[in-house]
């Protein structure tokens, strides 16, 4: 099969999960001002300090300019044209039967029905539909261990001391344009607290969906792992087909205390826009974790296949001695998608170690950039970093870019960085063809091998979905 027909097949792969749920939403008028923020806060019955947090962020946001440095290109966003609050009608449910059947159907279409998950995989699901948590399962079971896994609004009500203590400590309210916007208008998200010495018995998972038209999704996630605890958190996204661009500006904060370990996995499959680059989600996400005390470990794994624009740099601040940061990423772009993604590893403590493995695949007319920073501070004696960024190009209309920043201020630090860019070798395909494997499968094999290093980092439940998503994005062309 020639490259051209292969390409045509990718571009003709329609977004399988595109559909719209019809739930009458309780929403704010479009626009952004202090009134709207007060409305959101009142609607969620938030305490005074939370409102102040939002307002402070909003006032700061008004003085900021939208960043221009990323290698992405998009029409100017009109922030006054976005609806900042919309909630599904039903709330506070005790069992699955009370969940809106439409929502259950949605999940069924996605291949992740709550029941099945509950029964088979033992995964607790905090499903977020349009900015508000509908259902949190397995809560009691987790409660026995003292684990808190709830929606962010609930956490504000029930665990204000924890939220107050950690909110904004990793990503401060004035961090960057999109994070600050999120601080002002976030509607909901997830909150996790793992108490001292507890190993979370199951994978915690949240599925996000953008539902109402013109609804910006501003999620906020805060995960705190206390001394000696362990948690693995899964986040996955799919979105219905839309013509208008939708803004998604989430913030994720991870705090790992002494000896704690957090593993955060993402499969991101927002609607990428159609084959002409029309529509699609703008995904401007700020994700950052801090290994606050000794021997903590934070690991980010992400499979990015969706969104018209991805602007995302999950980072780790290695503050405690002997802490470890990891970043594993597969980013696939097709058609007119643009991705500018990577990580930051900030080494502050002694003997801190970080690993970066990033695999970018670009096809169609897409642009895929890795942007990362490894910074070794003077105090980071004996630190170690290894980075590897590989790009695979499919077709001659796409671009693959690498922008690493390496800064070392200590002689005992060892930093290694490697990056390669290439296309799938014709000899590799020929070798497979010779052995009776058709081109399609050969390419699939090669891409599988190319991304394996990252995919194997995903928890079992997720790896399956990740592979499915890679298929959707590139099937027919590379797989």
């Amino acid at each position, binding site marked *: 099969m020639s490259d051209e027909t292969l390409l045509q097949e990718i571009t003709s792969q329609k977004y399988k999960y595109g559909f719209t749920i019809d739930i009458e939403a309780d929403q704010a008028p479009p626009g952004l001002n202090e009134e709207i923020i007060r409305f959101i806060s009142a609607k969620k019955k938030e305490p005074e300090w939370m409102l102040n947090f939002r307002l402070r962020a909003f006032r700061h946001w008004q003085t900021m300019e939208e960043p221009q440095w990323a290698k992405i290109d998009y029409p100017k966003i009109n922030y006054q044209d976005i609806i900042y609050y919309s909630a599904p009608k039903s709330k506070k449910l005790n069992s699955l039967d009370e969940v809106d059947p439409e929502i259950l159907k949605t999940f069924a279409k996605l291949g992740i029905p709550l029941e099945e998950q509950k029964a088979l995989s033992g995964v607790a699901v905090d499903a977020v539909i349009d900015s508000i948590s509908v259902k949190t399962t397995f809560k009691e079971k987790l409660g026995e261990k003292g684990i808190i896994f709830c929606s962010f609004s609930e956490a504000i009500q029930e665990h204000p001391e924890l939220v107050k203590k950690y909110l904004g400590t990793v990503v401060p309210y004035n961090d960057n344009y999109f994070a600050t916007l999120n601080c002002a208008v976030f509607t909901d998200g997830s909150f996790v607290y793992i108490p001292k010495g507890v190993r979370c018995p199951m994978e915690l998972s949240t599925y996000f969906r953008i539902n109402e038209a013109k609804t910006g999704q501003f999620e906020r996630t805060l995960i705190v792992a206390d001394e000696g605890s362990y948690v693995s958190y899964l986040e996955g996204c799919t979105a219905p087909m839309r013509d208008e661009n939708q803004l998604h500006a989430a913030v994720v904060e991870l705090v790992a205390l002494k000896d704690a370990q957090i593993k955060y996995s993402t499969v991101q499959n927002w609607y990428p826009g159609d084959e002409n680059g029309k529509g699609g989600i703008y995904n401007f996400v700020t994700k950052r974790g801090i290994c606050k005390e000794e021997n903590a470990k934070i690991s980010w794994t992400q499979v990015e296949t969706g969104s018209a624009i991805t602007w995302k740099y999950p980072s780790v601040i290695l503050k405690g001695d002997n802490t470890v940061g990891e970043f594993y990423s597969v980013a696939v772009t097709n058609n007119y998608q643009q991705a500018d993604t990577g990580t930051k590893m900030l080494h502050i403590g002694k003997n801190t170690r970080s690993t970066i493995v990033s695999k970018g695949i670009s096809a169609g007319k897409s642009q895929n950039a890795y942007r990362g920073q490894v910074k070794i501070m003077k105090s980071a004696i004996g630190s170690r970093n290894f980075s590897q960024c590989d790009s695979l190009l499919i077709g001659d209309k796409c671009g693959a870019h690498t922008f690493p920043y390496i800064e070392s201020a200590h002689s005992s630090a060892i930093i290694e960085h490697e990056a*390669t860019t290439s*296309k799938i070798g014709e000899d590799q395909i020929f070798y497979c063809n010779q052995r009776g494997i058709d081109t399609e499968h050969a390419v699939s094999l090669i891409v599988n091998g190319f991304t394996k290093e990252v995919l194997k980092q995903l928890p079992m439940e997720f790896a399956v979905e990740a592979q499915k998503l890679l298929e959707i994005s590139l099937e027919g062309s590379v797989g």
Partner: protein
Amino acid sequence: MNLAMNSPIKETTKAFISQFETGEALPFGETKRQQAVGFLQNAVLPGQKTEDWKYTSLMPITTKEFQQPENYASRSLDICNIPNLEAHTIVFVNGALHSVNMLPGFDSDLMIQSFGSMNETAQIIAEKYFAHLTPPDLDIFTALNTAYGNKGTMIFVPAKRQVQKPIHIQHLTDTNIPIGIQHRNLVIVWEESSVTILETYHGTKQNSTFRNQVTEVIVAENASLSYFKFQHEGRNASHIEQCNVMQQANSQTAFFTVSLSGEIIRNTLRIRINGEGAHAGLKGGYLLDNIEHVDNYTEVHHIKPHSTSNELYKGIIGGQATAVFSGKIQVYPDAQKTQAYQSNKSVLLTDTANVYTKPQLEIYADDVKCSHGATTGQINEEALYYMMTRGISKTEARKLLIGAFLEEIFNEFGVKEVEEYVHRCIQEKMDSIH
């Protein structure tokens, strides 16, 4: 960023520029000069927020006052001489032409001329190619050079000439006052010719100097050029250079940049490969101590298919010195079958030294092989220990390792005398670093 006319940075810039203003202009390139003067009206000095100057502060240069160089006096040039090297030489002392010495029996079509004393043919060529590769408004330093620089070297190698002996451009600063020097090189290597150029910078006193240089190089079809830059002007000498190269089909280049001393050194080397089958080689080495600062900024543009480039920069950083490396490889949409490799390796000797590395790949064609690698580390303790167990002192072992580490940068230049000389300079500098 809306800078009011009287903002502090604007004032600093104005004051900085005014130091270099001069009425003496070159006999060619008037339009370009006017353009540059116009650009300078509203130009501002780059700050830390300027992405390309993120790691290099210009404060050490902009806070000093520089004077116009004194008229040259004939002083001892011994320091610039490379033992046993036979080369055509053109010598500049404090920025002004000192002498041109051609070896006996040279090809009379070969032009090695100073901007100040060019013949008519040379002027016609210069008029055509002056600021051809480097737009006058590229940046503030280029504009400054284009507007007020009036010294320079022109090297023109006509078609089908193999220049056997290297051409040596010597720069010497010997001054008791801080001076600002603007120099410009225009190198044209015509079709099927080949030439080797060596440019050295030396200083006799530890006075502050600021050198702002623009070099333009055109390498035509099937031509080849080897260009060695050796910067050893003293630890208070600052050097900002913009070197723009254009390569045509099947041309070959090899650039070597070795920096041994300087307060602020910023070498911009931008190679545009604008023809099929061409190859560009870029090598750089630096050995820094005290508060020396070297910033190597390179760009390789692969515009046409089937071209290759290979880049290797290595450095040893001691004291409180800083090394910056930015390397960009850009492969244009039609430049299929490009092969581009880049590597940057740094060794830190102290905990007060800093290394910043920023490699970039921008690839718009699919059938390419590109890679970049970067490492930062320290001297291998095991290798050191191995040598010490065999009776080599620690100092000597370190010298050996560092020498070997940097050797790779210049040992393919092809002129033995130069390689030996650079090697010896490195060893001498090593003696002062511990």
